[in-house]
């Protein structure tokens, strides 16, 4: 059965109204939950207009919507540490604090709150640390960015949950990144996914150093696999080309079959992902890795 995926056009100036319209027409519903967890993307030291991290205005619009239509006990905005991600600093430096204060939301660093070790039937991981905030009966919204990625080709709704793994050195999972993304979605499956592509990231140096693409869209739905399948189409891939989408579907996270509501994705701007350039970049990266390993006194 196909999952419903919405696509809407907007820019950051009108995102409040457009998000409200989009979510209401989709039939967004918290299903009686009084706690909401929003996983944002603060994975790199890049300013919001680069498209790399969550835009504060999008978070502002989402919090406004939640406060307007639901009587909630608490809203948690979460992110975890990574090798190049220091969310405790980024949340301040990139202007999120006034927004959190305005809507009474609480920021939680998943790497610094308590966590429990849980057995899972993952493709690569058999145990995973689950931050305590996820143990509550809360509604989980994944608020991610629409980006290309030099490692996984794209980074949208499903990849955002990789950031729910509370350990800092997540990069150790990079050799099995597709499997681990699927595993993370098994544990942290979002109830609702929103992918902000108003300014996305294109080119082959994504997700951190690509080209900002002013695509003026956002994609949303209850099934993160279907949402990512639509995102793959927007970027210019066939969903079957993206390994973590296939693996997530195999694990039962969702389905790649989708029913599109809202805007047509044919109108969307191209994301400039050149496959030959990507291949050359990968070769260069492996050369650099090989050279670093061989680096010795002789190389000087």
């Amino acid at each position: 059965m196909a999952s419903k995926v919405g696509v809407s056009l907007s820019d950051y100036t009108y995102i409040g109204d457009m998000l409200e319209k989009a979510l209401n027409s989709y039939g967004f519903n918290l299903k009686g939950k009084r706690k909401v967890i929003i996983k944002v993307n603060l994975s790199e030291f890049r300013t919001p207009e680069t498209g790399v991290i969550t835009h504060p205005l999008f978070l502002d619009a989402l919090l406004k919507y939640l406060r307007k239509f639901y009587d909630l006990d608490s809203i948690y905005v979460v992110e975890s540490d990574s090798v190049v991600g220091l969310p405790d600093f980024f949340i301040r430096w990139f202007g999120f604090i006034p927004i959190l204060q305005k809507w009474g939301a609480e920021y939680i660093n998943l790497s610094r709150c308590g966590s429990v070790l849980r057995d899972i039937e993952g493709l690569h991981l058999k145990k995973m640390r689950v931050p305590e905030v996820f143990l509550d009966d809360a509604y989980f919204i994944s608020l991610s960015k629409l980006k290309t990625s030099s490692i996984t080709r794209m980074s949208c709704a499903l990849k955002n949950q990789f950031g729910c793994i509370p350990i800092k050195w997540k990069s150790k999972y990079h050799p099995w990144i597709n499997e681990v993304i699927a595993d993370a979605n098994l544990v942290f499956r979002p109830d609702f996914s929103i992918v902000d592509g108003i300014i996305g990231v294109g080119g082959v140096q994504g997700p951190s150093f690509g080209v900002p693409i002013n695509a003026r869209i956002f994609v949303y739905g209850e099934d993160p696999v279907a949402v990512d399948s639509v995102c793959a189409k927007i970027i210019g891939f066939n969903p079957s080309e993206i390994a973590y989408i296939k693996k997530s579907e195999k694990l039962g996270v969702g389905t790649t079959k989708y029913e599109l509501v809202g805007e047509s994705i044919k109108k969307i701007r191209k994301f400039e992902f050149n496959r030959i350039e990507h291949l050359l970049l990968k070769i260069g990266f492996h050369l650099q890795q090989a050279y670093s390993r061989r680096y010795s006194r002789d190389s000087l």
Partner: protein
Amino acid sequence: MKIGIIGCGKIAVKAHLPSFMAIPEAEVVSVADIDEEKAKYVAKKFGVRKYFKDYNYVINDEEIDLVDICTTPETHAKIAINAASNGKHILVEKPIASNVREAVEMIKVAKRNGVRLCVVHNFRYFSAMQGVKRSILEGRIGNVTSIQGVCHQHFPLRWSPRTWWFNQGGVIYDIGIHMIDAILWLAEDYPKEVYAVGGDYLNGMNCVNQASVLIEFSGKKVALCDFSWLTGRTIFSIWVHGTAGHIFSDMCFNHFYEAHGVPTPIDEIKNFSLKMFTFFKDLISGRFFLSSLAYHKPLIEKFIESIKSKGCEPVSGEEALLALAVAEAIVQSINEKGKIDIMKMIQSKSGDKNLCV
């Protein structure tokens, strides 16, 4: 020459130790780090005989001739002054110290004890930078009139927070100090005044992450530079303009070219071919991947030679002091929104009104 290294962080492991290992007349005999396990690991990895938690063991070791300081900048002065007082020559990572006052003190103590002090401003040893200097000295662009530098680097996320906010200097004290040194070295002139605009372009980072700077020299030269941590791409390029031509250099590709007269397509073809030639040469030799780390060795080698031959240090304490003074003046100019006189600033901060660099 027997070497003792203090601080076993990334710069010591990736650049200093491999450089010393590749110099036949140098022998690293001890390493020290406040993290003893790290010192032990580094000593084992590089076959160093002794390792310590307390750096005083290194500077009190009679066997050691040269102390290499690879610790964080705020510790440079204390270690260097102790080492110089014990008669050790000093090699210190950039910037020379955390402020002008400490740098002046380091230079004075080194002179008083008859030891040599050299600061690792290794960007001078990029072959492109050497080429630019050679062209200027040969008069190929006439008299230098102005220099324009662009110095952008992605924010160093792996630094410790204490280092980030060091002196509120941010990008100026990180990669910027290399650009300042390169400009002063190429200009061969004393910086007279500095005017800077910039500061913290984010919310509450409390250090300079973006700055545009104008440096006026004693002669008629002027330098304009742009520093940033925000743009996500590493750029280290310099235009030198002279009365008879121009030189452009790009340290990311270790490439430079001269431009004279009317621009022609042949110029473009020649420059592109030269760039590709340098790129493939560096790719094959591996220098492309090492970037600036490959240029510690020539500087260290020259320093050891200068100690033996009693010649000039490749980068003297005074030169590094001037670079630090310009960096400090940039931050001061941003805060005070006005021009800063370099010499007056050095004299007032060092507390020595007769000091002349």
